[in-house]
């Protein structure tokens, strides 16, 4: 399994630019981590339920009511670029 990790490809999926040096370094280091994790294959997990969570609570609902929350000014207070009470995003359509 470990041989299949392609750091350059995964970095694209993760929207993360890596330098050539970082790509090489992570390829080696994460290869070692995945090799270590190979031992999970020793176990028979047939019929075992996957634990997404350590405690059995599911589907916590609340009434769909408006609550006091951020004003637009508060929500925008940390925005790197903003104008007219809006976040400025990078152009998404040509």
């Amino acid at each position, binding site marked *: 399994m470990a041989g299949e990790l392609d750091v350059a490809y*995964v970095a694209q999926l993760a*929207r993360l630019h890596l330098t050539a040096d970082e790509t090489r370094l992570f390829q080696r280091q994460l290869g070692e981590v995945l090799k*270590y994790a190979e031992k999970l294959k020793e176990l028979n997990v047939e019929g*075992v339920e*996957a*634990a997404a969570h*350590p405690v059995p609570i599911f589907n916590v609902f609340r009434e769909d009511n408006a609550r006091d929350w951020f004003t637009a000014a508060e929500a925008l207070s*940390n*925005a790197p670029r903003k104008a007219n009470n809006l976040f400025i995003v*990078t152009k998404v359509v040509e």
Partner: protein
Amino acid sequence: MTKRDLPALSIVELRDFLRRKEVSPAEALRALEERINAVDDKIGAYLAHDLAAAMAEAEKADVTLPLGGIPIAVKDLINVEGQQCTCASRILRGYRAPYSATVIEKLRENGAIPFGRMNMDEFAMGSSTENSSVQVTRNPWDLSRVPGGSSGGSAAAVAADIAFGALGTDTGGSIRQPAALSGIVGFKPSYGRVSRFGLVAFASSLDQIGPLTKTVHDSAFLMNAIAGHDSRDSTSLNTPVPDYTKNLGHDLKGIRIGLPKEYMIEGVDPAVKSAVMTAVKQLESLGAEIVEVSLPHTDYAISVYYILATAEASANLARFDGVRYGHRAENVGSLFDHYARTRAEGFGAEVKRRIILGTYVLSSGYYDAYYLRAQKVRELIRRDFVRAFEKVDALVSPTSPSPAFKLGEKTTDPLQMYLADIFTNAANLAGICGISVPCGFAESESGKKLPIGLQLLGKALDESRIFQIAHAYEQSTDWHRARPASEVLAA
């Protein structure tokens, strides 16, 4: 007792002085500030602290409240309205929290003053605090060594008497391990016991906020303030919070403590092994019955942890997109370029490494082999603890396989760094509670005393029992009274 000695007090001791009006909250805060100014340039625990704002709170403090007028340091990933919350990351440099976490509201309801933003591994990813993008934090017992991590700033500050107590977070040991390496008490609550609302998420199914303190009593006392149900955290447990200080002082007769045979592994430092075995004998002499137990899937915990924690982190960190908050790359071409460069410039190496690993184990074709399989093994690990706790009330082990290591010693080998969590991260996978208490010292080659931590694990929601056992042990020893040599911290 002079004003100068105030910072050495525990939270409970300071509370008594404040209640008797022998000291005012403003005097306590000023004494703390003076010691921070004298000592923290050697330690590097504080990323920021705002004396003027805290002083305004101190002037109005109600000392009849449980934590009235007591400053509590906060790891820099828990939001306090108006204060920075950077997670020690470049991507959040300059970020000001527009709201407060539930734990902060609860601290304030109890009269405490959140004071100081503590250094940490970036986004809590690390075991030494060396992954901070801002500064190095040094171990107060030996300045050439790490304080542990990721809550290393919180731990070092409490150890150096530059904080009365602190909040940290524990995702795989990030409270217990730095507490052990810094010679203080660190407590990880059961999953769901303390609200995560307002905590910047690393791995949502593992993260818990908890106290780092000088004594077990302080730890229980802080837990009384921060535990409880919160409708703003859907994983918060809606069960009553007992008074965690109630069982303190009870003896250990009738208590059964398990010694997991899988934890007696090679590679544990001999001084750690010997201190822990001496502590086990001490627990026995206090009336506890020691029983050997088995946690058969122990050997798989690190693998499961680093698959699940990185998977959750890769999803949680997707929010850092350079639009709503945080760093944004300049002069980008496409939208893809905007994201990829913003994140490349904002995140440090360990965060990038974990995003890559987490994205990989969740990606099409590998999900079943890694992520799903790891979740199943997580269930096996959880069952190991359920079975063990049918036989015993608590488990005992070292907190960390070694005392504090040298700065730089493990930074080039991520796998070695990950193995520093070998005794702690199964508790996060299983959702149980645990504590680290000081249990002795190793000696470095240069003759410095290096603290050793004893870990006690309890079943989910059995924190009272863990506090009882830890307190009985602590009070029967002098380890918690030891302080870093004054020549290290000479003011």
